[in-house]
């Protein structure tokens, strides 16, 4: 019975191949059985033959309409996640939208997997069904694999987001340290001590330099310290938002004071 279903396509293919002078093996099998000598791919239904020339245009309008519906649903889902805020730039919105498409895809993929599994479970026990079910299982495997790749990416992304504050602190420390170093060397140049400093060798000179630097920092004005740290924080924040690694609402403490600044300095001169 299953074989009857594809007979028409097989016959059409036979006519074409005979006309072209090919050597097509005609099916002689009984229903439910397959000729062992016959290649399996000759049994695959030629779907395009069933709909003929109409196959290209039949669903086009429906595709457009349904694609619009999907887009609208994703936009509505997006509105619940992205608050209407001028600081959410286009890059962030695209990132959210891409994630929403992938989530939606996974949900529909689940529906397709369920449908395919039902067909596998309810299919008759025949060699042809076995072959078709093998194709269905391959489709299920591909859909599951895509989902697991997406899930793995989401886990990694979330871990990166959670580790971000610590990495940002390190980056800020580096910037602050570099700024202080630049200011200290400028000061040394002013005092014409740079040459002597550069020539310094041995442990004693390194210790002497560290002492000079600590003294230099201790003498800095509170406002200046605050400005340096704030500039470093803002620069790192800006860089990470532009790269899409940081949420735009990652805050900067407006009440940054000397005590907090000193904490930052403490890390840089250790």
């Amino acid at each position, binding site marked *: *019975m*299953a074989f*009857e*279903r594809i007979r*028409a396509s097989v016959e059409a293919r036979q006519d074409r191949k005979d006309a072209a002078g090919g050597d097509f093996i005609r099916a002689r099998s009984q229903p439910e059985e397959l000729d062992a000598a016959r290649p399996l791919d000759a049994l695959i*239904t030629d*779907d*395009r*033959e*069933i*709909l*003929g020339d*109409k*196959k*290209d*245009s*039949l*669903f*086009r309008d*429906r*595709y*457009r309409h*349904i*694609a619009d*519906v*999907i*887009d609208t649903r994703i936009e509505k889902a997006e509105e619940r996640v992205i608050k209407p805020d001028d600081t959410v730039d286009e890059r962030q919105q*695209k990132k959210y*939208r*891409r994630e929403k*498409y*992938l989530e*939606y*895809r*996974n949900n*529909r*993929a689940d*529906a*397709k997997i369920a*449908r395919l599994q039902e*067909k596998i479970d309810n299919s008759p026990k025949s060699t042809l069904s076995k072959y*078709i079910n093998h194709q269905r299982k391959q489709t299920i495997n591909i*859909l599951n694999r*895509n989902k697991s*790749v*997406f899930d793995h990416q989401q886990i990694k992304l979330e871990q990166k987001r959670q580790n971000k504050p610590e990495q940002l602190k390190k980056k800020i420390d580096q910037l602050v340290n570099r700024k202080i170093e630049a200011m200290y060397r400028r000061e040394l140049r002013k005092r014409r001590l740079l040459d002597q400093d550069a020539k310094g060798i041995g442990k004693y000179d390194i210790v002497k330099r560290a002492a000079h630097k600590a003294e230099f920092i201790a003498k800095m004005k509170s406002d200046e310290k605050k400005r340096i740290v704030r500039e470093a924080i803002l620069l790192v924040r800006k860089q990470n938002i532009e790269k899409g690694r940081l949420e735009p609402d990652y805050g900067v403490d407006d009440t940054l004071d000397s005590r907090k600044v000193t904490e930052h300095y403490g890390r840089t001169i250790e």
Partner: protein
Amino acid sequence: MDGLLSRKFLDDIGVKLDEQTYQALSEHYEETLNERVISEIVDELNEGQLKELEALKAADEGLLQEWLAVNVPQLNEIIEDEITVLLGELAESSDQLT
């Protein structure tokens, strides 16, 4: 002019293509979508329905659509699933498309 693959969707996932590449991708998208949807429809039909469908090959499109509406009631769901799966594949490989 936009092909079946929406430029807005490509823009949403951060893919920018020149006109020629876009047309080629859109054609490939439509071809792949057609194959998958038709394959699913054929899978839904029994032997008798397949024979009826084949007989309608020469009929006008309106009649064909009516027949499909009656014999494949979950057609919209099938199309939605296949579009979403295919768009998801495009979104996932968006980095390689640019």
